[in-house]
């Protein structure tokens, strides 16, 4: 590890100050668990961005699913999101009030059933929703695409010199897709060694001002990704504007179901029209997601907000920065 630390220090030599961002809950977790930030020299800052799919799901979407569930619509959902507090309650709490909410590991469990899939997640998980639609499953689609918020962050207040790119989103979309961001990027796998090596490579790109994408996960990520998965995604879903927790509406950053017959937003429009959402004013999840603050900068962190009593999504999800910081230690 000393050798790795020296390599990174060396790579950062020509740089006065660099801020690099990772945008993947899986990366956030490994970085924290292994204390990888301690390997970085003082002139390099690694921030976490909106890489947690549960965290970036809007309060409004949570409230809409709650409204459906409390109106006796059967809901199927991936696990983490069940404990995110909506305006009135969480899905888990609705379940204890008698709502039929089925926790699933895979959409395989509900293909063609009468459950409505609460489809959250990025491009890694969207193809599975397309398969569910192919099997005539109803879907409330809240999928999000990674590149538009990254573009918004690059144009925002925080200076970002480069990104560590999610390996499994890249396995689906391909390494070529990221070039459009026109900033130094390194696609990384999920071992601590791979992530450290990716950071070293990224710092070299930054010091040489090379705005290119380096694929450091090339046994799994190919230039065009998984063409079959990409095609089926766009056969059944279309790109739409989407609301991100902490970032507001981002144009063309989400997916919606093409066929109105299986689109829960259309089918249950009358129930959904009455949903009004109000985010907690104390929760600073939005600022955490944009890399503006660390979890420990939030007054609620470890006080009123803990994994057992979460005030916001970032503390609920195993991929949320606050949950990870709580379990593994401080970011700084």
């Amino acid at each position, binding site marked *: 590890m000393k050798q790795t630390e020296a390599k990174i220090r060396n790579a950062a030599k020509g740089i006065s100050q660099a801020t690099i961002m990772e945008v993947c809950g899986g990366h956030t977790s490994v970085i924290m668990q292994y204390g990888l930030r301690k390997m970085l020299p003082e002139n390099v800052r690694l921030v976490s961005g909106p*890489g947690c799919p549960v965290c970036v799901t809007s309060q409004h979407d949570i409230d809409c699913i709650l409204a459906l569930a409390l109106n006796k619509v059967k809901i199927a959902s991936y696990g983490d999101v069940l404990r995110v507090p909506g305006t009135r309650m969480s899905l888990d709490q609705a379940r204890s009030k008698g709502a039929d909410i089925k926790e699933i590991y895979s959409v395989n469990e509900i293909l063609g059933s009468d459950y409505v899939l609460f489809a959250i997640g990025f491009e*890694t998980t969207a*193809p*599975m929703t397309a398969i569910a639609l192919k099997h005539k499953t109803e879907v409330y689609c809240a999928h999000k695409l990674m590149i538009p918020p990254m573009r918004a962050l690059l144009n925002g207040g925080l200076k970002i010199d480069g990104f560590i790119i999610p390996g499994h*989103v890249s396995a689906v979309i391909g390494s070529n897709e990221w070039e459009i961001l026109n900033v130094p990027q390194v696609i990384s796998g999920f071992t601590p060694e791979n992530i450290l090596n990716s950071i070293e490579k990224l710092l070299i790109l930054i010091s040489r001002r090379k705005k290119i994408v380096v694929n450091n996960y090339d*046994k*799994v990520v190919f230039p065009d*990704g998984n063409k079959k998965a990409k095609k089926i995604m766009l056969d059944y879903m279309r790109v739409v504007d989407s609301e991100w927790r902490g970032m507001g509406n981002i144009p063309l950053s989400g997916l919606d179901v093409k066929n109105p017959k299986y689109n829960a937003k259309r089918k249950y429009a009358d129930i959904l029209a009455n949903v009004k959402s109000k985010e907690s004013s104390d929760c600073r999840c939005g600022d955490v997601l944009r890399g503006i603050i660390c979890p420990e900068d939030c007054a609620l962190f470890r006080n009123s907000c803990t994994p057992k009593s979460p005030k916001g999504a970032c503390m609920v999800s195993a991929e949320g920065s606050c949950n990870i910081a709580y379990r593994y230690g401080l970011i700084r």
Partner: protein
Amino acid sequence: MCLAIPGKIVSVKDEIALTDFGGIRKDINISLVDAKKGDWVLVHVGFAIQKIEKLDLD
């Protein structure tokens, strides 16, 4: 959500592949890839998302 693990396909019936993950076997949906018996795949939430060479993922 990012978690994906490699497995080796043991047998295939239609779009479901019995897949071996270091001794544990599970049915995996392979409709997102073109894979056959003996192939290695990367699996996420019960689906193969990419065909890969057998590898140490370090």
